[in-house]
């Protein structure tokens, strides 16, 4: 993985000093809150319902054991003993004191971490396929280009005061595990007819009040041109994105109002100018230099046989172990969704124990997935039973990856100042309702995503079942959406109808799932059945009517 050199280290250290000075100026009153707020946001510091919240960047979701230990240390020393992994592969701490944040950032800097641009109207954390470098269906590891984009976008002087936040995702596989089509900009590694790899660039996807699926703005961008191309898109957005209405300020609105042809034309004008100047050329030597940081570990020659079962092992392998490109290896998903637990939370003890496990089994990296789980990308198959046993003791071996209890939920009204309703208790109640593992397997793949407000941090628009918490005259209500998908077959969920009260929502979800079980054919997943029969049968059932024989 990437290692800071003296320039990176100095950059982060200077940034820490800068923020320390900004905090001092705030406490002394030299800066008022209106002036300080954009500055603290650019360092990932929010003021939430109970306290400040610090969002720390985990670039392309990759951590090493040392960094994981530091996160545990921060949880213990400055917070309340736990952290929350987010749908953008970052980690959040919910209780830091403003006066401690400069020290937290200084501690992070010692392990090459920071909170730069995890909030604010700037380019945010670049996310990537959490199976990058390990998946057997990958063309190339997308993390080198993610790192290049990260550096290029760090304190970019022209794009730090955009109309709104800007999210970029990258993927190196046709199987989209990074939800590319719901991002402002997405970079997908593709191969052309001549066998060369380059980038397909998508623009204008997004969640929030008005979800959009992105479209192709660059069909095949040559590798040396990618930064010039991205800068071109950013420039069109910074110049023309709406500044008059907060809810229409994302690039998805501009991309939709210009349309693909006009957007491409304007991007090409900028692109031609930048390319002529050569200032953003990304030559092969530089690409190779960054690639080298992401060279995979040396894979031993090992038997590709899956070892014999331990207690619960077979169940865990079924859902939480994925194929690896090297024989004898596997990708292991560590569930942060224990039945009835808070999705995406991990205690400092769990973080430390995972770091120790990584060291013991010589697993150099751990990943954060946007589905709020952790991933060990390079695990020897023969080590899986022991690792599973260790994870079980830590409460991290719930065998539910991709199943109905593997729920994604934003922090919601329990934590977030923006929320209209709680989301975590909904996730917990659904999880407990469907706890039975046999039942979960019968249901099969079902991605439930819950957001506590229209900002959609729970990505509910991309849920097979999406749940949106709303405030109806001060009372929490929940709207159901069906048929969303964040994969390469991206779709936005369709709203079912009027919302359900908090005493009703779990029953409604159960009825909807019941309808699927009645209606499905062959090996259909929930999403497939929905796409075949449409919303009406589900709607009827959800609101208490019988399922018609016609379906």
């Amino acid at each position, binding site marked *: 993985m990437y290692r800071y*050199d003296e*320039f990176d280290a100095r*950059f982060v250290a200077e940034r820490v000093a800068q923020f320390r000075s900004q905090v001092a100026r705030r406490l002394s009153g030299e800066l008022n809150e209106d002036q300080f707020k954009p500055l603290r946001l650019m360092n990932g510091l929010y003021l939430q319902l109970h306290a400040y919240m610090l969002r720390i960047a985990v670039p392309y979701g990759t951590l090493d054991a040392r960094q994981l230990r530091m996160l545990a240390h921060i949880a213990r020393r400055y917070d309340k003993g736990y952290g929350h992994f987010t749908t953008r592969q970052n980690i959040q701490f919910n209780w830091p004191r403003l006066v401690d944040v400069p020290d937290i950032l200084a501690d992070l800097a010692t392990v090459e971490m920071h909170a730069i641009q995890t909030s604010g*109207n700037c380019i945010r954390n670049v996310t990537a396929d959490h199976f990058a470098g390990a998946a057997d269906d990958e063309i190339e590891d997308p993390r080198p280009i993610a790192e290049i984009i990260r*550096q290029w976008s760090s*304190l970019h*002087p022209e794009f*730090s005061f955009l109309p709104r936040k800007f999210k970029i995702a990258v993927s190196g596989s046709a199987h989209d595990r990074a939800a590319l089509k719901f991002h402002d900009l997405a970079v997908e590694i593709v191969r052309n007819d001549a066998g060369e790899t380059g980038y397909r660039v998508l623009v204008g996807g997004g969640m929030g009040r008005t979800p959009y699926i992105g479209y192709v703005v660059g069909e095949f961008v040559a590798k040396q041109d990618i930064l010039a191309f991205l800068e071109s898109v950013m*420039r069109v957005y910074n110049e023309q994105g709406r*500044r008059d209405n907060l809810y229409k300020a994302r690039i998805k609105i501009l991309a939709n109002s210009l349309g693909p042809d006009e957007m491409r034309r304007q991007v090409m004008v900028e692109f031609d100018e930048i390319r002529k100047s050569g200032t953003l050329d990304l030559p092969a030597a530089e690409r190779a230099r960054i690639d080298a940081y992401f060279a995979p570990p040396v894979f031993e020659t090992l038997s590709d046989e899956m070892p014999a079962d331990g207690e619960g092992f077979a169940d865990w392998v079924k859902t939480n172990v994925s194929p690896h490109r090297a024989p004898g290896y596997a990708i292991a998903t560590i569930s942060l969704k224990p039945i009835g637990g808070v999705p995406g939370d991990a205690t400092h003890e769990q973080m430390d124990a995972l770091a120790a496990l990584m060291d013991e089994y010589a697993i150099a990296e751990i990943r954060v997935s946007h589905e709020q789980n952790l991933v060990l990308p390079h695990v020897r198959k023969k080590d899986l039973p022991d690792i599973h046993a260790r994870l079980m003791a830590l409460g991290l071996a719930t065998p539910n990856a991709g199943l109905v209890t593997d729920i994604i939920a934003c922090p919601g009204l329990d934590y977030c100042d923006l929320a209209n309703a709680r989301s975590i208790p909904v996730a917990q109640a659904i999880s407990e309702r469907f706890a039975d593992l046999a039942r979960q397997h019968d249901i099969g793949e079902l991605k439930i995503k819950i957001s506590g407000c229209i900002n959609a941090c729970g990505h509910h628009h991309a849920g097979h079942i999406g749940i949106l918490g709303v405030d109806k005259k001060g009372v929490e209500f929940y709207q159901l959406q069906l048929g969303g998908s964040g994969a390469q077959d991206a779709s936005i969920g369709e709203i079912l109808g009027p919302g359900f009260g908090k005493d009703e929502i779990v029953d409604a979800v159960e009825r909807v799932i019941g309808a699927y079980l009645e209606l499905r054919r062959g090996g259909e997943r929930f999403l497939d059945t929905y796409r075949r029969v449409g919303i009406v049968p589900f709607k009827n059932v959800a609101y208490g009517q019988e399922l018609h024989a016609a379906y």
Partner: protein
Amino acid sequence: MPLIKEGKFIDDPFFFVPDGKAFPEEKGVIVTLARFQGEKDNLFAHRALVGVRLASNENPQVLKPDLPRLAAIVLEFPKFRDGRAFSWARMLRTRFAYQGEIRAAGDFLPDQLAFMARTGFDAFEVRQDFTLAQFHQAMTEITHPYQPSADGVKTIRELRAHK
């Protein structure tokens, strides 16, 4: 409004003339885009120093034919969140190779000064209580940038290559 240029406070050689007001006798003048477009020839004929003040939604490309004769362009920040002027400044400096003064005016934070300098601003209308020490700190907090911009300063990648 105190004006900082080349790292020090200077007397402003320009006078901003609001629309509809008469020009003063001495000094250079800065006018709005609308006024400039309406009175361009007159201004150039009778003034040694002519400048235009652009609102954040006014694209400087309309000034392209006049740039060689414009002594200054003022780019407004109506609200510090409105970051369009960073792109306008870059456009002027880089695309059009504009040599005159690019001035920042309006509501901006000291913490945006470094970004302004990088994108091509070289003059800054600051608050009454703003000091040169604060200016210097704002300009020097981050030593090396990652990405190229209008200032042509060596990026971290270029510095790496020369090690």
